[in-house]
Structures are given as structure tokens and as C-alpha cells.
């Protein structure tokens, strides 16, 4: 597999949200707006790239039987770094994502890529894989966030397209997340099949 393929794999073919259906908690929880989706996606991307890189570097030192606890500690460290930095330098984004940032630790994508890819490949390829998966995840969350924000409150990235009163509130709330995700997956499957 060449480097480009590793990177592109996460974008569409094995897109974590639309194809693998991993990490559904943040996907459904934070995507009430495009901005939140993008912020969460990029935070996850950072964690993915860093943890993939570190795990690929130290994989040979870690005995097999304790690899999962070791991976979790490494991932949790980077998540805490993201949490603290965001609180310090992006307080407004932190206010809207707050609760979900610590949950990146248990996001299946991060541990999944560590286990399935980084523990078997060299650091450079692992970084590429993390970047591809992360960007695929960000893309999906931003798309879902845009759809929900547009249908729910008439805005995209807080930019008003039509007056808020005409929006269908359900899309900003949790049930709308399920509806929007379901239909997005259906459309993407249809496009892929075509």
C-alpha cells in the first residue's frame, strides 16, 4: 500500500463515521452546529496523529499483554493536553465542546487505529493513517453539523442563510442527529454504489 493510499483510506473508503460507524457518541453529541463538528473533528485528529505516532514509536517496547492499557494511557495523555490547551486558548469552543473532549479517550477510532494500524506500522505511515482517519472524521462531523445547523436553525458556521424561525428545531436536538446521520449514510452509500 503506498503512502497516498494510506492517507486517502480514511477519507472515504474507510471513513470512520460513514463507513466504519465508529465514534458515534461525539458524532451524534456535538454536531449541533458545523463549528462544533469541525472543532471536535480537529481535536480528535490531533489526538489520532499524536497517539498513532507515539504508539508506532514505542510499540516494540510494550509487552503484548499490557498493550491496551499502555495505549489508553498514551491516548488519555494527549486528550488531557488537548483539553487543557483548548480551555486556555479557545475558551469559547471549550464551552460548547467541554463535556465531549474527555470522551475522545473512549472514541473507538483512536484505540481502533492504534490497535489495527499503529501497532503494526512505522511512525511515518502511522502519522499518515492518523491524519487521513482524523480528516475523514472531521469532514464527516462538519458535514453532519452543517446539515443539522442548516435545517435546524437556518445557519451554516453561524452564518444566517434564512431566518431562524423557519428552522426545524428537531435537527438541533438529539433525535435530529440520528435522522440526519441515517440519511447522510444512505445518500453516501447510494453515491458509492453508483
Amino acid at each position: 500500500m503506498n503512502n497516498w493510499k494510506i492517507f486517502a483510506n480514511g477519507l472515504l473508503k474507510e471513513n470512520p463515521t460513514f463507513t466504519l460507524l465508529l465514534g458515534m457518541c461525539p458524532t451524534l453529541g456535538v454536531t449541533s452546529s458545523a463549528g462544533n463538528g469541525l472543532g471536535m473533528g480537529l481535536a480528535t485528529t490531533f489526538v489520532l496523529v499524536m497517539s498513532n505516532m507515539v504508539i508506532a514509536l514505542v510499540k516494540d517496547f510494550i509487552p503484548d499483554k499490557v498493550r491496551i492499557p499502555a495505549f489508553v494511557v498514551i491516548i488519555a495523555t494527549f486528550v488531557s493536553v488537548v483539553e487543557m490547551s483548548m480551555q486556555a486558548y479557545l475558551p469559547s469552543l471549550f464551552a460548547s465542546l467541554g463535556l465531549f473532549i474527555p470522551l475522545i479517550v473512549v472514541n473507538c477510532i483512536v484505540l481502533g487505529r492504534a490497535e489495527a494500524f499503529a501497532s503494526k506500522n512505522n511512525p511515518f505511515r502511522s502519522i499518515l493513517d492518523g491524519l487521513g482517519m482524523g480528516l475523514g472524521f472531521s469532514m464527516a462531523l462538519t458535514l453532519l453539523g452543517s446539515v443539522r445547523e442548516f435545517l435546524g436553525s437556518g445557519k451554516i458556521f453561524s452564518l444566517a442563510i434564512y431566518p431562524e424561525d423557519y428552522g426545524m428545531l428537531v435537527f438541533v436536538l438529539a433525535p435530529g442527529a440520528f435522522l440526519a446521520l441515517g440519511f447522510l449514510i444512505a445518500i453516501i452509500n447510494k453515491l458509492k454504489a453508483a
Partner: protein
Amino acid sequence: MNKLTVSPSPHVHSGDSVKKNMYGVIIALMPALLASLWFFGVGALVVTLTSVAACLLFEFLIQKYLLNRAPSILDGSAIITGLLLAFNLPSNLPIALIIIGAAVSIGIGKMAFGGLGNNPFNPALVGRVFLLISFPVQMTSWPLPIASRMSYVDALTGATPLAVLKEGVKSGQSMAELTEKIPSSINLFLGNMGGSLGEVAAIALIIGLAYMLIRRIITWHIPVSVIATVLIFTGILHLVDPQQYVSPLFHLLTGGLLLGAIFMATDYVTSPMSHPGMIVFGVGIGVITVLIRVFGAYPEGVSFAILIMNAFTPLINKYIKPKAFGEVAKPVKA
């Protein structure tokens, strides 16, 4: 139609068909429709016509262009969905919202799952709950009966008896104070109160129930178990503290309880198949309805209760199976 169908005996046909039963339900809905026209006049007419027409249109468009099937809009199911959706809406609901509701009912509630027979949730209720959550302002302004006969969107509005009750209890008013604000039982029975257009007239709904029971379109199990559960549950609460909990009769006659129990919980597709299963289903709806009405944030909970129990239907069907003909009950293996 030249194909020979081989099927196991008996080969006697009762003349039942999807279409026949569906039109039976439509006939049973007519008394309630007439009552709503009497109380809400023009508004009821506009809402009902828009809803039915939009449901038929979406059914046709989706079947023909999205699913590439032969459209079957005249089997009556889309008409029922349209009627039930309209019955669950306030009679001053603007046209655009009715059309959105119809699109959600048919598109998301029914066709997304594969059409008639495959939908786990009652389509009309999916549409109603979607609208209620999306447009809470428009969906909770209820036209006054009779006074608003000649007007549509600009009708005079007031609160439903259930909303009056919830507001009153929340702000600490005594039951005696509240009883004055609530219409008398006879008015509740006839339907002279604020509410969605098909739910107000208890008597018309009961006539519909009687018709469906006589024609054997439905059995008594679901409606009776829902209603009995609500009566018993609220009756106990009322006996414990009559100052805080209103009488069971009030719960029976207000809101969408009768409409839900008679017409929506009994939908063939989304309710259990066996009679014991139906009773479990009905009891569940009754309990959830009372929990939402008495302890929840919304004044009315019938539609949520039915949707929640719809989700349990496959589970009920799995564990409470109808006995096959000739089968002897076997002791369950531990």
C-alpha cells in the same frame, strides 16, 4: 394474473383484505371528522384536506421515483395516515407545516423502512412528534372550539385542559381553583374544548371504536388495556391525594388518550400480534402516558407513549408468541 398460487389449506377466504380493513378504519374515523368540522369548522377542513392530499402525493412520488415501484396509493393506508396526522394537529396549523409533517410521516415514518408493513413506528405519530419538537410554538397554540369555526390561521387560541392543569400544578394552585378553569365533564365528553382537531370529541371516537369492534377490524385488547391502565393508575393517584392529582375521568376524556388508544395504538403493523402481547402493549402505553402527563415536562404524553411501545413491539412478539393451531403448550426449558 395467470400464476397459480399454491398455499396450504384451508382455502376458504373470509373476504378480508388490506384494502377492505383500511377503508373500514376510514369509515370509523368519520364521526370524529364530523365532530372536528363542527367544532373547528374551516380550519379542520383545510388541515384535513391538506394532510390527506400531501400524504397521498408523497406516497406516490416516493414509490414511483425513489423506490421504482408501482404506486399503491389507493390501498387506503396513506389516507389513514393523512387523516390521523390531521387529527393530531391543531386546526390552525399553517399549510407549510402540515406538508412537512406529511413528508416526515410518509418519507421517514413509513417509506424509509420499506413501506406499508415494514414500518416499526406509527407514521402519523412520527410526523406529529417531529412537528411538535420542531415547531413547538405553532404546535401548542390551540384554537378555541366553536368560536373559531370561521377562521383558519388567525383563530383565537387558548390552552388545552391538560396544559391548564400542568401550568396550574406547577405554579402551586389548588385543585379547587383549577377545576373552575377546566370545562365540565359533559363538555369534555362532547368535545367542547381546546385540542388537536380529532381528539376532542370522546363520543365520536367511541362510536368509531364500536364500529370497528362490530366489523371485527380490531379486537378489544389494546384500547381496553390502555384505557383501563390509565383509569387505574390515575385513580390510585387521585385517591392518595385528590388535592394534587385530578380525577381519572378527566384523564380519560382530555388529550389524545381515546384517539391514541382506539386508532393509533391499534395500527396492525406496529402493534403486537398475540392477544396477551396486545395487553402488555396497552398497559405499557397507559403507564407511560400517565407518567408523562403527571410527572413529565409535557402536558400530554399519548403519542410519545405509543411510539415508545411501538419500539417494544418486536420484543413483545418474540417473547409472547401466538400459539400455532393445534400446538400444545410446552413447559419452557430452564
